[in-house]
């Protein structure tokens, strides 16, 4: 379990990193926190010719409000998300999600940009940025472009990034008044990849959803923004409507079978999460009881 030999370059600036990526193309891998990349290399599942280490690029680190947009640098570590007052105030969903990401040792090294660029369909942060309607900022040889989170994830470990681009930041719109969040996942053990998970952002007024974004994960090849949520917006939610929406949800899902769960189990768990989420967001515990005894 030793990585095959590889070259290593420590980027001195974003420009320098982009130059290196331009030279090496898909023979290079960007090293951020290394929490997924290094195990894959040690298992020889990946053997890049060169690692471009962006770990020293302070310009990519940090959390700041810019107007009503929260900007999170790509190198911001999970532990920083967990502890940041700006995150707690403006995007508590990220904080809640990160506490489910692996374990402290991994959260101390792993970065939000690395997690999003890795695009594991069972990981938490991709679903969060989809639910938060965030924008991914990428920089390439020809400049910067902004990609909606909903357009960013293309499949298992696949994103809209091209090999010569670097993910530099995440922009999260902050809604403020009335917005509320929900995060929960079912994992075999705390810190494991989810069997099914849900990151949600809602705007609730007078007991109704005026907005509801449900980002499911581990239910397909990428995070899923559930269209079924639309059935509950500006509607009076009752068990019948909830059941109808849950049925619509299962039709949207295309879950994989793996060692933790069959596709049927994932569908089932997604509907349980869905009901529990809606009940929690509306503070109506009675909506949780959906399964006939």
């Amino acid at each position, binding site marked *: *379990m030793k990585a095959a030999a590889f070259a290593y370059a420590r980027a001195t600036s974003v420009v320098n990193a982009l130059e290196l990526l331009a030279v090496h193309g898909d023979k290079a891998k960007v090293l951020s926190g290394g929490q997924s990349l290094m195990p894959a290399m040690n298992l020889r599942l990946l053997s890049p010719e060169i690692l471009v280490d962006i770990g020293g690029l302070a310009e990519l680190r940090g959390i700041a409000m810019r107007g009503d947009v929260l900007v999170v640098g790509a190198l911001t570590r999970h532990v920083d998300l967990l502890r940041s007052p700006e995150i707690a105030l403006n995007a508590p969903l990220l904080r809640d999600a990160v506490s489910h990401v692996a374990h402290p040792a991994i959260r101390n090294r792993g970065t939000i940009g690395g997690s999003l660029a890795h695009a594991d369909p069972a990981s938490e942060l991709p679903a969060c940025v989809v639910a938060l309607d965030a924008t991914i900022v990428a920089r390439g040889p020809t400049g910067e472009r902004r990609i909606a989170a909903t357009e960013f994830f293309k499949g298992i470990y696949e994103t809209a990034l091209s090999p010569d681009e670097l993910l530099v930041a995440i922009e999260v719109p902050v809604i403020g008044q009335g917005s509320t969040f929900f995060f929960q996942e079912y994992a075999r053990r705390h810190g494991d990849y989810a069997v099914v998970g849900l990151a949600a952002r809602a705007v609730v007024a007078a007991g109704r959803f005026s907005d509801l974004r449900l980002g499911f994960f581990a239910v397909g090849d990428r995070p899923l923004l559930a269209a079924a949520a639309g059935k509950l917006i500006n509607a009076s939610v009752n068990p019948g409507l909830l059941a109808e929406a849950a049925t619509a949800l299962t039709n949207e899902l295309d879950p994989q079978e793996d060692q933790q769960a069959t596709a049927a*189990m994932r569908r089932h768990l997604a509907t349980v999460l869905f009901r529990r989420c809606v009940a929690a967001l509306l503070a109506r515990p009675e909506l949780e009881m959906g399964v006939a005894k």
Partner: protein
Amino acid sequence: MTVTHPPAETLSVLDRPNSYIGKTVPRPNLDRLLQGRGQYVSDLELPRMAHVVFLRSPHAHARIAAIDADTARRMSGVIAIVTGRELEAVITPWVGVLSHLKGLKSAPQHAIAVDRVCWQGEAVAAIVAISRAAAEDAMEHIAVDYEELAAVTDMRTALDPATPVIHASLGDNLAFERTLDAGDVDHALSESEVVEAEFVFGRHTGVTLEPRAVVADWNAAEARLTIYQGTQAPHMVQNIAALHLGLREAQVRVVCKDVGGSFGIKVHIYADEMATYALSKLLRRPVKFVADRIESFNTDIHARDHRCRGRICVRPDGTITAFEIDDLTGIGPYSMYPRTSAIEANQVVNLVGGPYVTPNYRARARVVFQNKNVMCQYRAVGHPIACSVTEGLVDLAAAKIGMDPAEIRRRNLIADDAYPCASPSGMKFEQLSHHSSLAKLLQMMDYDALRAEQAALRAQNVYRGIGIASFIEVTNPSAAFYGVGGAKISSQDGVAVRLDAQGSVICQTSITEQGQGSEALTAQIVGSMLGVSMDRVRVTLGDTDNTPYGGGTWASRGAGIGGEAALQAAKALRRNILDVAAAILQSTPAGLDIVDNRIVNAADSVSRIELSELARIVYFRPDTLPPGIRPELMATRHFVPRQYPFAFTNGVQASWLEVDNETGFVTLLKHWVVEDCGTIINPQLVDEQIRGGVVQGLGAALFEKCIYDERGQLTNANMADYLVPMSGEMPDIEIGHVVSPTQESELGAKGAGEAGTAGAAAAVANAVNDALRPFGATITEIPLTPQVILTSLGRI
């Protein structure tokens, strides 16, 4: 922790002044380990040391048509590439059988496969290079031409005529079969309610923190092989290595310093370790093998892959009238060497029904070959199977007749005053304490209050369950385990103690340390017996050149057997010291004692002479001693149990948990254990051994499983997919004790290492079924995954 001591009739040697016995004292090796000064084989570097990596078969069963290593051989850093055929000239194959397991058969196994591979992960070639990375680079350039053969993977069809026979010379895939018929089961069947179930156990493994590791160093000039290995049984390794390398045992030294966990995984002889010894001899230089995590999953022994059909007969008054089992287990392609892979099934037959009175018991166990990794003894061998089957059946019987699970046990457990007695399978019990243990458990958990809480919560759609599991545990094995079957595995252990020239004590013991506290308990016993403070006792273990001959640490034997040897050796040295002291002080040995590192008057404790002064006189001024006095400040004693083949212990566990009936996830809320291991030497070490064992049992209950596909591929050989229990999911584990010392030794200690593992899964399974009772679901399969639970509830 609560400890119940029986009233002491007389003071024993354990009650000496300032005794460390029964006290929680820190382990002497803690500072060394915590300061990073442990000496693990993985860290060992020797001059000219090479590293070996094994190319392993990707197929479960295949013929090796050709191996092309030409390119790899020319790669930078490569020292040698060796195939099974080439290594055959250095090391002979072996067959893992024991003569007392009648009919047990297996085929010759080679250090590296010759012509044919029989499981995915079997070594096909060894790549020896200057570093592990260089060897792995070269490995990618070896081309092996395999002709795939049909793989036998399902134990249920392994004996079918249509299934290929893995070893043609054996005639069939049946490794071992044992039947037992005691009492009158047929009569019981005819006159009782009968409940039947099939219990399915997931194959799992030990997952030691430090993987298997060995450095073999053949010194051609001395014609001597030094093996540095993380093993539980150094003398066994010495014997086997010598036997198969054509050496005398005196030509092999086995050194075992710190070991990063063993759990029975490291008590066996593995093919890749044998290959490493042979490679060192072949290449005349030190060779290091450290298994990586994937290799560990594919080659460390697996265990517990059983399907056991069980029946229990019960009368309406709760009297259990019979147990019957039919156990089937698949052990991989070879019976493991030298302890064999029939022991677990044999143990299941021995132990089912063991805590209960009924004399009627019928059993069959069949052990079959298959093309998967080898199975063998792992912590609590057979016990979790036997306990889960027995206790699962008892709960089913209780449900059938509408009796409380605690009450049916009360009515059927062997009475505490019925000993000595024997089980229907012939196990001899010296003194067990099932009833006092159960009573203590129910009191610790406040059973009635918990039942009330459970009922109240059900009304709120919260489903919690209580599960109880009584168990017996085999500890302190005599020669009956292996010696009688012809294996050169010692069941006796020896301890040598000597006083040094400044009055400190050096102690060499043949038991080994893998974190259990062998060093601590030895120092506690020796210090107590000698009247020497523990900081003056230095314990050496794990070196065949420098310890007495003995078995090592496995089967919960270190404290009971090695501890008694330490006690007797220290007593002998004490007598010798007092003889000299009497001569120096013109007193009598009986008139003197040793307390706090000095000789005192036995009668009034007045200090007479420091041990350091006595040692000075003996070693440097023997001319001043009276004529005829020949001091012997070293003593050696060995011990092995003779009266009972095993010192059985007993205990009972309980689990309290919640099942989310919509998601199938189980939350463990609390776990209780009451255990009777006889004399407790160090309460904290005993309790933590039990907790660790419980956690491994909880892993089996909820998480751990080696998942093979139908082609014999292990599909979750990594720490992300093979789920070990982690602290976040573990409940508080409360431990209580009942103490029934064994009379076979002065120490009275029985084993405690496996009790936790023996009953934990059974308690959890019973609790899950208790929680699911309102839904009419019963599950007799572990691990109890959300998928299994949701399926049973009909949710998916």
